[in-house]
């Protein structure tokens, strides 16, 4: 497998303004030097708690926002350098599925227009062919064909998410970035959408970047995995290896915090102290040292590098 998407030392810092003159009063280090590579055809899981920068990465890859520094290589071209015209072609190969199926569909457009809009913009089909293509897409995501003239409010959350998936698939993308695609859905519907995503991956040879906070779902879907904490990747590698033997203390704590159906089998819970620090004032040294149960003096001063540890990359001075 070849690398389809590579992030190199990607950074996004937001400046915070305050006062009536908008003087810069601080910086949010939302994404602070991220390297990762996603292979063609795999599902890459990106996990972390709120504020760790995982959604910012998605928005950077899509170029909804501009990176502060670093590069985003997609299929050999650096997306971060593309101009508007080049970006149009680039975006065709990258599509996104959003978390909130209620907010991500235009309520005034019919389902046919929502799905067909991208086809028109990218000149993929002729106008008279459009309805046919949209109908096919509806079949693929398991919606009735007569949905084409209906509006989003007529659908349930799960069905809307199917519309969002059909829209993403319409332009035949290479990579689909799914940002918490099932967390707004009911439990019984989540499994339906997960199965659909997996079937589509096989059928269209898709690559997924799957962003979620639900570790059970990520472990089920992902081939590779990256765990983020405060804008940095703390551990990345083969998903099932990380799940069975986490190397970074944060990964270990995160995994142990998942409520399990089988209480007897569950590993001992590691309760982290305190809250996630603010990304405006990240702690010195290893950013996790304030909550880490294994932290030592060295962790307070020296930033750990993301280096090879037990067959994967981890950023920790004292890996497990």
């Amino acid at each position, binding site marked *: 497998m070849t690398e389809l998407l590579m992030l190199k030392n990607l950074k996004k810092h937001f400046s915070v303004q305050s006062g009536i003159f908008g003087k810069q009063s601080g910086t949010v280090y939302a994404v602070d030097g991220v390297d990762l590579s996603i292979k063609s055809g795999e599902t890459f899981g990106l996990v972390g*708690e*709120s504020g760790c920068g995982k959604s910012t990465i998605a928005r950077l890859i899509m170029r909804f926002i501009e990176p502060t520094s670093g590069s985003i290589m997609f299929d050999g071209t650096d997306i971060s350098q593309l101009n508007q015209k080049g970006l149009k072609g680039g975006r065709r190969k990258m599509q996104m599925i959003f978390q909130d199926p209620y907010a991500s569909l235009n309520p005034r457009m019919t389902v046919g227009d929502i799905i067909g809009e991208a086809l028109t913009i990218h000149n993929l089909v002729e106008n008279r062919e459009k309805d046919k293509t949209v109908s096919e897409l509806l079949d693929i995501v398991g919606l009735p064909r007569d949905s084409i003239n209906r509006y989003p409010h007529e659908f*349930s959350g*799960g*069905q809307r998410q199917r519309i969002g998936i059909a829209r993403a698939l319409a332009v035949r993308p290479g990579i689909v970035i799914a940002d918490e695609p099932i967390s707004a859905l*009911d*439990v*019984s*519907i*989540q*499994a*339906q959408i*997960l*199965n659909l995503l*997996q079937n589509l991956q096989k059928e269209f040879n898709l690559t997924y970047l799957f962003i979620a*906070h639900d*570790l*059970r*779902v990520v*472990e*089920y*879907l992902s081939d590779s995995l990256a765990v983020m904490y405060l804008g940095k990747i703390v551990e990345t590698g083969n998903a*099932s290896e990380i*799940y069975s033997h986490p190397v970074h203390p944060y990964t270990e*704590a*995160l995994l*142990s*915090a*998942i*409520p*399990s*159906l*089988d*209480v007897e*089998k*569950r590993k001992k*819970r590691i*309760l*982290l102290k*305190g*809250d*996630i620090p603010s990304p405006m004032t990240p702690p010195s040294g290893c950013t996790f040292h304030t909550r880490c149960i294994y932290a030592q003096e060295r962790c307070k001063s020296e930033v750990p590098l993301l280096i090879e540890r037990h067959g994967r990359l981890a950023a920790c001075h004292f890996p497990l």
Partner: protein
Amino acid sequence: MPLLEVDNLHTSFFTDTGELKAVRGVNLSLDKGKTLGIVGESGCGKSVTALSIMRLVPYPGKIVQGEIIYDSKKLLALTNEEMRHIRGNEISMIFQEPMTSLNPVITIGEQIREAIELHQKVKKSDAEKKAIDMLQMVGIPSPEKRKKEYPHQLSGGMRQRVMIAMALSCTPNILIADEPTTALDVTIQAQILELIKDLQQKIGMAVMLITHDLGIVAETTDNVAVMYAGKIVEYTDTKSIFKESLHPYTIGLIESLPSMEKTDGKRKPLKAIKGMVPGLINLSSGCTYKERCPLGDEECMTKEPELRAIKKNHLAACYKI
């Protein structure tokens, strides 16, 4: 005798498009010091059941029928004044989103103090001291300083701690927690659940935990009621619900979860429940789960099954078991 008993509760919302029967005959009982989990998907009536117990059902909702007995008092027969005395003092509730349940323009110390003063005849200075003690108890660092802060200055987990501090400030006998950790991150969720468990043992209160997460149910509850379309479809102790689940809906829910344990390293497709939850206005006759159920047949079409004892202490509402 159980501490709280809900008997044949019916709560409906009278909307412009018709009567929406949110809760359709729920029977529950909660024992002293125990935790009862109520699980179900959105719209199954779990929150409305909780709000009915508190008598806080919002307009245009109304409790249509039924009885709620707490400590041999019929809650539905009490005057508003008497009910106010029970709320917060004897039965407390915490909600999913702590930001919207706290007053944004009053400091957190003040809000907790207010609750204590309202329910207990204590001096202002004593109430203030109690408020600080409560903040300390729920694990808020330097409570003397923190009490002067406003809700927006706290993180989500801290806010939920403040809510819990307020809810427990009058040492209630029952705490109703409606999705208390849904808005929180997993590591914070673990902290809050642990905290509720801890405090429960300290105070000896009963907890009614409403959630959609079966994992939380498995870890924190003694008994579980599974709700679907306004009714309880299965009701038993927590161990049995996972080991010997009976109702096809419960089985479907458990099987649709991706499991952490992989079988021979391969991904099996998830067993999804087909279709979706029926609308609660103009429900068709028969079992509400019939269209989605793998066992559904003729019998399920005509009459809705009642909750019956299949085994000792194990109730389910299904013809096919």
